[in-house]
């Protein structure tokens, strides 16, 4: 009896310790970049501009869309897939929101619902193509990227659709413009709140749900998962659905923030999102990683962009620095104790 309880207690303590270390590693790069940002921040009257609350919230707002996408991407990558279509789906949803609200004069609720449904279905279809026909996710979503982009252009007649607010025809309900606003005394941007809320939900979901157990198993060893009775195909399909859904949500946020849906919105966001996920320590081979890491990775990229911009580094040099920091952050990840 005593040995038994020993095992249990032991395992619990050990798990926590490991998880802490794991998170620590994940945070390490962020902290390094954060400290660097403080050191290199321009000052005005002794005030560190980087640390002004305005600026910090700007950082979070700026990463919120990539962050939302990256959360969905984490799920996909955890099962060993990849989703290159998210940027294009963001564009499609931004266009969809604008067209439905403005041209079709729908209310906010039905418009948002339709757009989310489109994203979800688009993702599910990609998941089916990948899981049921056994086509590599990379290629399915590469094709999905093109298709979503084409649909967005067709839906919007190839132009950006501006969103004007009001009660008249061809005007969107004012509630939608809240996405571009700030709350809590005009300080906290709504998109940042959405991102944070979603991140918390995703973390809880990954920690507590049976689906998450299945997801990690599929990513870790698909064959073993299948033989263990995990509904592998269903897991894969749902995961792409989640990614599509979150990309659509990001598109809605995008349209609300910018008061426009444009078919080229979100171009290249997929790579930023993947970078956030990988910097956050999730393995592209699947089975290992966390949403906490992804959020960390997204914030790291956001802080990096911000500090480079605050110092007005030449755009070309920024590219070099960003490239090097991404590699360095990924290398830091490798220092995690082998598991």
């Amino acid at each position: 009896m005593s040995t038994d309880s020993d095992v249990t207690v032991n395992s619990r303590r050990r798990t926590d310790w490991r998880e802490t270390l794991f998170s620590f590693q994940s945070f390490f790069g962020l902290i390094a970049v954060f400290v660097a940002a403080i050191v290199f921040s321009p000052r005005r009257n002794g005030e560190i501009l980087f640390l002004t609350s305005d600026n910090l919230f700007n950082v979070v707002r700026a990463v919120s869309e990539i962050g939302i996408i990256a959360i969905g991407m984490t799920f996909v990558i955890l099962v060993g897939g990849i989703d290159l279509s998210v940027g294009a789906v963001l564009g499609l949803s931004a266009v969809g929101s604008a067209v439905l609200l403005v041209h079709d004069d729908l209310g906010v609720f039905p418009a948002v619902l339709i757009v989310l449904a489109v994203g979800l279905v688009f993702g599910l279809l990609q998941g089916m193509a990948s899981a049921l026909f056994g086509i590599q996710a990379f290629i399915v979503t590469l094709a999905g990227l093109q298709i979503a982009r084409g649909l967005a252009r067709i839906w919007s007649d190839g132009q950006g659709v501006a969103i004007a607010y009001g009660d008249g025809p061809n005007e969107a309900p004012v509630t939608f413009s809240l996405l571009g606003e700030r709350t809590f005394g005009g300080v906290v941007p709504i998109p940042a709140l959405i991102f944070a809320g979603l991140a918390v939900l995703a973390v809880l979901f990954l920690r507590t749900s049976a689906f998450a157990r299945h997801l990690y198993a599929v990513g870790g060893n698909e064959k073993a998962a299948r033989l263990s009775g995990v509904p592998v195909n269903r897991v894969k399909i749902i995961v792409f659905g989640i990614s599509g859904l979150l990309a659509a949500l990001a598109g809605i946020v995008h349209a609300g923030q910018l008061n426009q849906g444009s078919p080229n919105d979100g171009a290249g966001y997929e790579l930023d999102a993947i970078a956030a996920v990988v910097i956050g320590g999730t393995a592209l081979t699947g089975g290992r990683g966390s949403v906490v890491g992804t959020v960390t990775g997204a914030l790291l990229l956001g802080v990096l962009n911000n500090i480079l911009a605050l110092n007005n580094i030449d755009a070309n040099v920024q590219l070099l620095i960003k490239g090097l920091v991404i590699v360095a952050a990924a290398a830091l990840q490798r220092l995690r104790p082998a598991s």
Partner: protein
Amino acid sequence: MANDAPKLVRMTGIGKRYGGVLACQDVDFDIRAGEVHALLGENGAGKSTLMKILSGDVTDYSGEIEIEGAPVRFGGPVDAQRAGIAMIHQELDLVPGLSIAENLYLGREPRTRIGTVDGKQMRVWTQALLRRIGIELDPRRPVGELRVGEQQLVTIARALSLDAKVLIMDEPTSALSTAEVEQLFAVIDELRREGAGIVYISHRMDEIGRVADRATVLRNGRIVEEFDARQMTAEQAAEAMVGRPVRTLFRTSHGEAGEELLRVEDLVVHPRRPRSGRNEPAGISLTVRRGEIVGLAGLLGAGRTELLETLYGAGSAGRWDGRVLLDGVDVRPRGPRAALAKGIAFVPEDRRISGLVLEHSVLANTVVSIVDKLRIAGVVVSRRAEQANAAESAKRLRVKLSSLADPVGTLSGGNQQKVVFGRMLLTRPKLLLLDEPTRGVDINAKAEIYQLLSEIAGQGIGVLLASSELAELIGVCDRVVVLRGGRNVRELRTSEIEEADLLAATMGETAAGGAR
């Protein structure tokens, strides 16, 4: 003769630590020319680690190695091969996409005059090597197409091709059946006569007595005893390995079998996309009763694995002829999930590839099949229930671990096997399908698994067990069904037969022809 032959290898004071685990400590080990030195020990005793050190695979160790008197320190496997040391690894480390010939000569391809790979030469040599170990395979077949046993033979051929002075065989026979094992022993005798030194690791005790001259037993990374292998009894070896007397190996009590649980009638599978090398059921009839353990015997490629996979819904997609009845009701599970729901569970033969997520914890691997049932109000998985189930499973199967959070890949082979076993028992099956459940499992763990099987059968669960170890089939099963070419050819009651009878039955007519 062997005892005073020169020492080819001398390892002294070898130590190796993996994190908190001392895999080897202060080990002295030597290999003489013209002798077969068996290395024994429980799963996780450190046998593979010690030999990986010798073969240059593990380079960060403490201690000294001397080859023919000269101290060496290898930087990698290539160094060791140059020094005349070859190893057959326990895990089948082959490249699935390359052909047999390309695998055999990987890293040292023969070249033509213009520097390209000399494929013809490679194939000729390969064919000669394969023939030496008694198997006819097309040297150009991709290794990924071969069955596990065939792959194991390829790794043996690969090691032979190195013409090494010292040949390390880490469980070379775990996927082989009797005929292939006999052929391998013939080769080993030949090598011994040529003056090679051979290290032989196996959990099949009967093999040790037949092939080895000397036996060294490792326990928890330390050497505990050395035997003259020819005089050693299985009981002595087992006691040295475990540290206490081991109780009778096989099943103690055969209870009364209950009513019929599984009935397979003239099962034929016509796969939609036939795959070469797969021997689909081509007319199989058998029954399993509640509380009964039925064995499946057969040679390499007899179709045992395919039958079990088919019953589990994990076989080839395609049309079925014949019937499968579970509790008198027609079943045809669409997949493993459906099979589990119907009470059919399956322990696959290759635990590393088909059984486990090696980098995930023991806990996650143990409960993955039942997590949906551990939800509170259908939403959140209860951590406490997960923990309790995993801990209970580990305790019941006596899995040796320091923590349930350990990645399952760091457990020894036998303990990994028990984890898969435990996972399936947690699903509370009616029918348990086992494919080589003791492959690579040490005698103590085997005894525990056999004990467990007894218990399971005692609870009224029906067991269908495929195995290549005849002793195991006879010791554990009530009846044995012999398969050949995807058909059942004989059925024997184990209480009435000896190993030789079973051997003859599996080999059938070809037995007269000799090795093949």
